[in-house]
């Protein structure tokens, strides 16, 4: 008895006992779950195998970035879905960032009316579930936009209808290589000039208008190349043929609704993050910068933003991640993303719930773990060096 008491009173040995006990409990629960799965599968005559990935999927996907038809395998259907997830996440992130930063700045503006408008926009948008945003936008596009025959015509170039949006498609012709080449040269120049200007400023204090010079170089050089090589880019303009439009680029109602909904919903969160980030910079920083005579734009760019960035980037990344995960709700309106292809139709056709869900979850998990690894790296890098 005394001996047991001694073991329990000793911190080291007590920790080991507790850990062994926890491990034992978890192992017991896991083995119970696995035994249950085994028994259930035996009773149903099922097994676990991933061979279904290589048999023909047999269903159509209305939007694909790589070639796909219904004789391709389930694996390829899944990849098409994954690319579609990436596509909508990409558009959504751009829209959300632009709108969110804009709203965040408006929210901080001294103008009472504009600030209040932004406030109510943010409150309305983020207090309504994302699924409702998606369904609402989808409904608006499907039910209120006109048929293709009476499509809203924007300058004879872009057409909005209930079958989706049609925008001109740039076609490249011979000689385009020169434009690409000049673009690459311009970008290399911009990077080098940026580094040079920064070194110069560190050493001598001389400042160049880096942004404007780089912008004009990046725009001018390819434009010159464009004219030298005989204008090798033309636009394919969508035109009404029969009941629908042909030619140009087509954005389906589902993709458009998802992009708007994800962008508008996430923008509200990003706006709050931007606002909080800017407000987190100590008031004294701004006052000090103003008192040494920096212009308002310099105060913002050189003093406030570099410090706000440290606060803004981590939650911003996690909003991007949320947006990507939320895009899985696409299944509610029939956009064929990863969950709708592999976790939806493939699951129903092959009856392999276990395998498809494991693959889908692993893909999302690896994306989000790699993003959080990036975030940790950034946090360590951006951390204030203190004692």
């Amino acid at each position: 008895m005394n001996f047991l008491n001694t073991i329990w009173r000793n911190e080291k040995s007590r920790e080991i006992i507790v850990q062994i006990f926890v491990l034992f409990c978890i192992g017991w629960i896991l083995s119970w779950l696995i035994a249950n799965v085994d028994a259930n599968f035996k009773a149903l005559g099922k097994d676990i195998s991933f061979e279904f990935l290589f048999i023909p999927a047999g269903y159509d996907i209305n939007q694909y970035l790589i070639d796909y038809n219904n004789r391709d395998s389930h694996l390829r259907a899944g990849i098409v879905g994954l690319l579609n997830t990436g596509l909508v996440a990409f558009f959504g992130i751009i829209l959300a960032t632009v709108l969110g930063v804009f709203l965040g700045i408006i929210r901080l503006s001294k103008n009472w009316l504009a600030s209040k408008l932004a406030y109510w926009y943010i409150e309305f948008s983020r207090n309504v579930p994302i699924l409702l945003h998606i369904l609402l936008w989808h409904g608006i596009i499907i039910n209120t936009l006109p048929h293709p025959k009476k499509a809203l015509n924007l300058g004879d170039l872009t057409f909005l209808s209930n079958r989706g949006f049609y925008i001109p498609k740039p076609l490249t012709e011979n000689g385009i290589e020169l434009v690409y080449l000049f673009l690459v040269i311009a970008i290399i120049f911009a990077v080098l000039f940026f580094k040079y200007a920064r070194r110069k400023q560190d050493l001598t204090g001389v400042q160049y208008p880096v942004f404007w010079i780089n912008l004009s170089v990046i725009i001018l050089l390819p434009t010159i190349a464009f004219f030298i090589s005989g204008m090798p880019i033309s636009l394919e303009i969508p035109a009404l043929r029969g009941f629908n439009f042909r030619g140009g680029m087509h954005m389906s109602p589902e993709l458009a609704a998802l992009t708007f909904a994800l962008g508008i919903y996430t923008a509200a969160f990003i706006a709050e993050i931007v606002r909080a980030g800017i407000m987190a910079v100590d008031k004294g920083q701004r006052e000090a910068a103003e008192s040494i005579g920096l212009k308002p734009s310099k105060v913002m760019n050189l003093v406030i933003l570099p410090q706000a960035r440290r606060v803004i980037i981590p939650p911003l990344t996690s909003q991007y991640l949320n947006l990507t995960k939320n895009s899985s709700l696409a299944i509610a309106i029939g956009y064929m993303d990863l969950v709708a292809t592999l976790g939806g139709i493939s699951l129903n056709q092959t009856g392999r719930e276990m395998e498809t869900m494991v693959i889908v979850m692993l893909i999302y998990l690896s994306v989000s773990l790699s993003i959080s690894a990036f975030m940790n790296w950034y946090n360590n890098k951006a951390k204030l060096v203190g004692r």
Partner: protein
Amino acid sequence: MSSQTYKPGSYPNLPPPPGTVGVYGWIKNNLFSSISNSLLTIISAILLYYLIDGIIGWFFLDAVFDADSKIECRKIDSGACWAVITRRVGQFVYGFYPEVERWRIDVSFLTMFVAFAPLLYPDIPKRKWLLWFSAIYPVFAFILINGGFFGLAKIEYSLFGGFMLTVILGVSGIVCSLPLGIVLALGRQSKLTVVRTLSVCFIEFMRGVPLITLLFVASSMLNYFMPPGTNFSILVRVIIMFTFFSAAYIAEVIRGGIQAIPKGQYEAADALGMTYWQKTRFITLPQALKISIPGIMNTFIGLYKDTTLVVVIGLLDPLGIGRAALADTKWNGLSTETYLFVALFFFVSCFAMSRYSLWLESKLNTDHK
């Protein structure tokens, strides 16, 4: 050079310069302080005018509140056709819960406020007595809503729906996920390697996958993990998934709170000879929870909003009822009205929750500012 002297009271006090105070001064300072600011005001005002004009017209003035079908609506007026809502308002609130038994939902909903009051407002009179009621409320509500005891008719889960289902899912998810979240947060900060690793794995897994895949698991796979023959309600399975999902997020929020506590607090507790559980109970949690209130409330609001996802696995929450209404040929195409109505419900409840969180934050703030 002559020196000037000033004796207090020898001159009358002058009013502040015109245009710096009062309504005029406020407008000048806040709306028209510079050219760009004035421009912004004018643009905002125009935007606001069109917004209000359009909203009032479509929502109220030109709207139809009672009609038999969409076509009839359109014949009467050009605005919103709210008839799709007014004709099914019972379903939107109670789902398919039998009409004669609906008083049971009303009673449990109203008593819910009594049960939550002592938890939400610490200063309420007779708090001790009310807390007893809070403790038995879950059993009370379960018996009342589910039935099967004391002569109350048993109601099938498949009849649950509408806003009532949202509130049931949301409240039970919130109530269950807070304790689990606290345990996970403590586990993640634990010295014991096994406990820490397990907590990290659970939290990262739950945060890494979309909720909808977890709901698919709940609806199609969870039965595989149970002994053959067990069959428990989809509602319970969904609540379990919601609890796990938001517990992982709450754990991360609370971990932030725990890490924000100055090290001196622990050292002081150790110096006083406190055990781990005493330290957790009296030092860590009170401070960590206070810091993490905004984050916890945000997670709750997120969970509440996420209850709409159950429509994807076929439960009839307000969105499911709405979609069923839209599938009716009479109401085909009235999606904007239906979804806006549901959106309004969510806006009101979520906005109220976020206001409460702000109030609680300022009440518990003991900083000397």
